[in-house]
């Protein structure tokens, strides 16, 4: 319910036996009202201003590179700052590949947790599950990166080696699961998966919570098991929203910087071998920015622009999908 129309209460009107000014407040108070409204509006507009400024200022700084490289900035994979060559394709590839690995790992787990917390868990366990996910989300990404580079990468290297030995002759698998580097696309994907699981879980949970109880009861009433109820009532209802949640997770994975910079191996290459080192847009920016100057710096900011545009596109589409569910939940 929206607030009642305030004007009815505050608009000047003729009151028998007086002008009503005592009731309606002084003129300064009325000015206070419109002032407050404007201040609040300005605060809200800061969001739009910041987004516009991000697009404008970063594009402006990166312009020399965009002008020089043109489309080859995103279609060439030759990135040699010393020779003035800036082709970011290998980084774009690394960003996409590591994020996709993260999604493949995180989506089934996130959905499982969301369904468990909303549908299957005993009542007293539901809150703790949510609580643990909150803590998981609260751990700073640099800490995951630290753990990834000092603990996970060395520990997982022999695992990669044995997998790559085992499936080496199998056509597709041997091609994908190839390489022996602890710091690799795969390690980055694993760390990213841990980081985006809480996001996908909490958004999926919100969507699943909008499933009307009547649908569940109807399914149970027809004699469905819990799984059949989930498949026939919960999932069809929330499919769109879950897709949105997954896309938001994708957006987060693509923009994640520090953890990826530490574990991806910082070696730009386009390869399907998941156990080999690569590099991502965000990781390159943070690793090279310190020693970059001139065009090189402009090129790194240009990578930021590409990243910004991609994540905005992903987020806008995801939010449109999730937004539909939001409205449905509020019964509008």
């Amino acid at each position, binding site marked *: 319910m929206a607030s009642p129309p*305030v004007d009815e209460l505050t608009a000047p009107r003729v009151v028998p036996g007086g002008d009503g000014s005592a*009731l*309606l407040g002084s003129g300064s*108070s009325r000015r206070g*009202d419109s002032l407050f*409204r404007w201040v*609040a*509006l300005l*605060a*809200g507009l*800061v969001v*739009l201003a*910041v*987004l516009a400024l*991000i697009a404008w*200022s*970063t594009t402006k700084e990166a312009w020399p590179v965009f002008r020089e490289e043109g489309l080859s900035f995103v279609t060439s994979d030759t990135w040699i700052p010393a020779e003035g060559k800036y082709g970011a394709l290998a980084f774009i590839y690394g960003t996409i590949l590591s994020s996709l690995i993260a999604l493949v790992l995180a989506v*089934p*787990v*996130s*959905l*499982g947790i969301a369904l*468990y917390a909303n549908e299957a868990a005993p009542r007293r366990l539901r809150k703790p599950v949510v609580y643990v996910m*909150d803590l*998981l989300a*609260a*751990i700073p*990404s*640099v*800490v995951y*990166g630290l*753990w990834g580079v*000092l*603990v996970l990468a060395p520990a997982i290297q022999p695992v990669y080696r044995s997998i790559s030995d085992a499936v080496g002759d199998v056509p597709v698998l041997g091609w994908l699961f190839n390489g022996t580097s602890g710091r690799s696309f795969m390690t980055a994907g694993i760390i990213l998966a841990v980081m985006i699981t*809480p996001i996908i*879980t909490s958004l999926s949970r919100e969507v699943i919570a909008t499933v009307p109880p009547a649908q569940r009861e109807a399914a149970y009433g027809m*004699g469905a*098991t*819990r*799984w*059949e109820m*989930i498949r026939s009532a919960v999932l069809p209802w929330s499919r769109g929203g879950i897709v949105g949640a997954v896309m*938001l997770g994708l*957006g987060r994975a693509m*923009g*994640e*910087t520090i953890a990826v*910079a*530490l574990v991806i191996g910082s070696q730009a290459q386009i390869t399907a071998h998941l156990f080999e080192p690569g590099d991502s847009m*965000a990781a390159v920016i*943070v690793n090279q*920015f310190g020693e970059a100057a001139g065009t090189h710096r402009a090129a*790194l900011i240009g990578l*930021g622009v590409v*990243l910004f545009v991609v*994540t905005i596109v*992903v*987020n806008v589409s995801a*939010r449109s999908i999730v*937004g539909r569910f939001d409205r449905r939940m509020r019964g509008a």
Partner: protein
Amino acid sequence: MTDLSFDREAERLLLEATTSRSRRVKDRLASVWMVGSVVVAVVPLAIVVAYVVAKGASALSVDWFTKDLPAVTRKAGGGMGPAIVGTLLITAGAALMAIPLGVLGAVYLHEYGGRGRLAGLIRFMADVMTGVPSIVMGLFIYTVFTLRFGLMGFGGSLALACLMLPIIIRSTEEMLRLVPDELRQGSYALGNRQWRTVVTVVLPAAFGGIVSGVMLAIARAAGETAPLVFVIGAAARSLNTDLFSGNMTALSVQIFSNAQTPFAAAQTRAWGAALTLIAIVFLFTILARVVSARVARRHNA
């Protein structure tokens, strides 16, 4: 009181009598998947926290909190004082900017904008803004602020404020939504103007929830690294309490730079900084939980 164990037993018998074996197996498998997912998610949390505590605890001492960073990172000694102070100051600076703006923005969205088109646009864009990568925020502040005014802690505050703003706007708006309209109407009936109603009735009523959302935003910002790396002059080694001049460092940045070295002393320092940072972040997260739990209790009472 019903006997739950009896109910469950009855349910199981009923299920077996009425449900085919393959359907029951599928149901069991789904349960295994769901419980397994929780386990898979809890394991990394437990492992990471255990490592940070085990490896980081040895770095902590009185010196850790008071001394400057060592000149040579590969040797032991020195402390993390400047980084701890830096993280707290930069985050506080960000909070001081983002909280008033965020709360006012939310007031506009819920109390004035309502379902209008502009409010809808701002709301949508705030959601989109939460998805802007933190490294992009760092680049943004670098281009509009650092290039003009140089490296300083305040640049980090600006970047973190940009990350916190949309989170605070959206969480505060959710809380304003929970304030019953009767309170607003009561205030109008007493002759209060809308702005006085918002300031003296609506915001106090939503205070607990707003605080909890703000705490979560602070917790998230305090752990950020990418937006700080090239705007605060992170190579600083000595204490600097002035946000507006001179290089400043932060815990997250110290973890990042120390983790990249092959030296044991530096790595220990990274673990210690991670433990300190997680302690700060968890403190805010748990505070948020406590505040929101208290608010929920009051609502139920």
